[in-house]
């Protein structure tokens, strides 16, 4: 068993973004037989977050010598640690994928320390080479880039210049999505503003419907969201006759008249890379993240609500992002007037992972 050299790159160094970390420490996996255990926080078919992972992992099932075991509805308590241990002990899993944010600390860290021979990967950019065990790692797609593209198209699709965002909880990745959406809209329509309503939890269908109605009542004519299962938001918006942008998975079939485009993860890129590493007997990288430039996010195919101008602008934005054009270019103020973005930040800069503010141009508050 050999160890390759540990590279010094850590999350805290704000240097130019690496797409795939060179740090590949860990035991060489045996080529061939592999059991992947993946843990979902909700149901696999929620038209949202969990479905995106399930669809991606399906591509692994057809690979020879690869077995996939899945478990759904595992809460972010010690239950997830026990589930992972159960997969290792009773199912013989040698790769564990934890897909919910709250699985990492302390659960995956503790389980990774306990089972040094198993590789653990977590879907959020939390792994730190100095603090965390080497058989643990992170992967993440910067969905805010896709929300930026949504915003670009939405800015050209609104007549009232009001865009509505139904958000679950005010955490960094959600706030980044909201801010990027707003920046994208403003780039094509300087008069656009985004109004956000927080429902308080990841999946609350009645509240999501109420929030959508409230936003439309307040004048928004394009609605998007960041909740675990966007089905209700998109359906409600469609029934009110406004346009929509999707999130997490393709909700295009739900809004035949008003769908513009949607922000989707492309977890396949990462999962296929992991499977290829394992099949080839190579160690899996500890950190795999990126946006358009790494083909880890994508936008849903344009729907009937996307005008030719919106399409063209969106496609140009996608090309720009592939070329690593930054979204957050300072100086930008938050809703309270304080300057929070002072210069131009590369899209994968860790500073942006700490976002806890809404930028000027967004109407709403965090608590």
């Amino acid at each position, binding site marked *: 068993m050999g160890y390759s050299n540990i590279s010094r790159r850590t999350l805290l160094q704000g240097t130019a973004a690496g797409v795939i970390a060179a740090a590949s420490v860990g035991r060489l996996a045996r080529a061939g037989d592999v059991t992947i255990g993946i843990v979902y926080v909700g*149901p696999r078919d929620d038209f949202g977050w969990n479905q995106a992972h399930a669809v991606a992992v399906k591509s692994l099932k057809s690979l020879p010598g690869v077995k996939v075991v899945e478990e759904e509805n595992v809460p972010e308590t010690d239950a997830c640690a026990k589930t992972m241990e159960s997969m290792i002990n009773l199912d013989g899993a040698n790769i564990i994928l934890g897909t919910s944010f709250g699985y990492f600390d302390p659960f995956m860290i503790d389980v990774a320390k306990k089972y040094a021979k198993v590789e653990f990967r977590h879907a959020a950019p939390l792994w730190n080479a100095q603090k965390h065990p080497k058989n643990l790692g992170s992967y993440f797609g910067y969905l805010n880039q896709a929300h930026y593209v949504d915003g670009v198209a939405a800015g050209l699709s609104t007549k009232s210049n009001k865009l509505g965002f139904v958000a679950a909880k005010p955490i960094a990745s959600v706030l980044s999505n909201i801010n990027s959406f707003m920046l994208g809209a403003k780039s094509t329509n300087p008069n656009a503003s985004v109004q956000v309503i927080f429902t308080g939890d990841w999946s609350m269908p009645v509240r999501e*419907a109420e*929030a959508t*109605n409230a936003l439309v009542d307040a004048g928004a004519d394009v609605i998007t969201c960041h909740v675990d299962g966007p089905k209700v938001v998109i359906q409600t918006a469609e029934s009110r006759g406004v346009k929509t942008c999707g999130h997490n998975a393709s909700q295009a079939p739900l809004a035949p008249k008003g769908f513009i485009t949607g922000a989707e993860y492309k977890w396949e890129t990462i999962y296929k890379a992991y499977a290829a590493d394992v099949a080839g007997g190579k160690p899996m990288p500890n950190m795999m993240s990126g946006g358009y430039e790494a083909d880890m996010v994508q936008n849903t195919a344009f729907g009937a609500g996307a005008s030719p101008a919106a399409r063209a602008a969106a496609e140009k934005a996608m090309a720009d992002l592939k070329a690593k054009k930054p979204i957050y270019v300072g100086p930008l103020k938050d809703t309270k007037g304080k300057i929070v973005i002072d210069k131009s930040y590369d899209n994968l800069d860790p500073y942006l992972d700490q976002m806890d503010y809404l930028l000027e141009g967004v109407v709403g508050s965090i608590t």
Partner: protein
Amino acid sequence: MSQAPALVVLIALIGGAIRVSTPFMFVALGECLTEKSGRVNLGLEGTLVLGAMCAYATAYHTGSPWLGVLAAGAAGAVLGAMHGYICKLPRVNDIAIGIAMMSFGTGVAFFFGKPYIQPQAPRLGALPLGAWTGNPQLAASLEVSPLLLLGIAVAALMAWAFANTRWGLIVRMTGDSAPAAKAMGVSVDLVRFLTTTMGGFLAGIGGAFLSLYYPGSWNQGLSSGQGLMAVALVIFARWSPVRCVVAALLFGAAGAIGPSLQSVGVNQGYYFFNAAPYILTLFIMVLSAKSKRAAHDVPGELSITK
């Protein structure tokens, strides 16, 4: 902002009252009937969820949302019948059975409902009662589901029946004094069985509203205690069907407070606004619990208030 904030909130409250109140209304009416005959059915939360699932599944497979509504009612009736049958056995605590039915009904609904989380079922239409107003937001708020009108009709029918028919009298007597009913030759168990079954039927329809109209989708987070709040509603309404309707409208409006306040810029403390229905329920339960009027209206046999 195209309109004054207060107006936006008011419109949202009206819309909320119309949209969100219907499940409360049906469950409250069903429970009102059950409690009038002297039995408590706390399992209506499970009935609501199971009704929602059955409605969605049936509508999806048959293409007809109204068949879904019927299926939901049937499922609710089955659960109600179970509750009614079990509770007449001696030494059985009907409140505990209600909690058990709640978890059983929810479990069965989630179990069979799994394949239906993703697909889209045909939804119930709405009557655009607000089309005459020039204001699109008001028009949207005033879109009324036929189920709401049905609920109001059922309430009126119940109120009339309680006061004017022999059957209504029997139900009330069973609820006020079982010995007196028995002396009249009425089978107390049968009456309660029937009212619990009917109550379940109505609650199931309430569930159908959730999955087929608003929010119009099936998943595991659909109900958040609405069934139990409806039971509290009945106490607040002092067992009168018409007051149940009013209370349900009030609750629907309370449910819309959180999001609508956020939409006009009142952003602080949205958790508490979202908890408004629960706080409201507790508040009115405290107020109405020992008031003189409640003591007068309560069915004498009801274990919940003994």
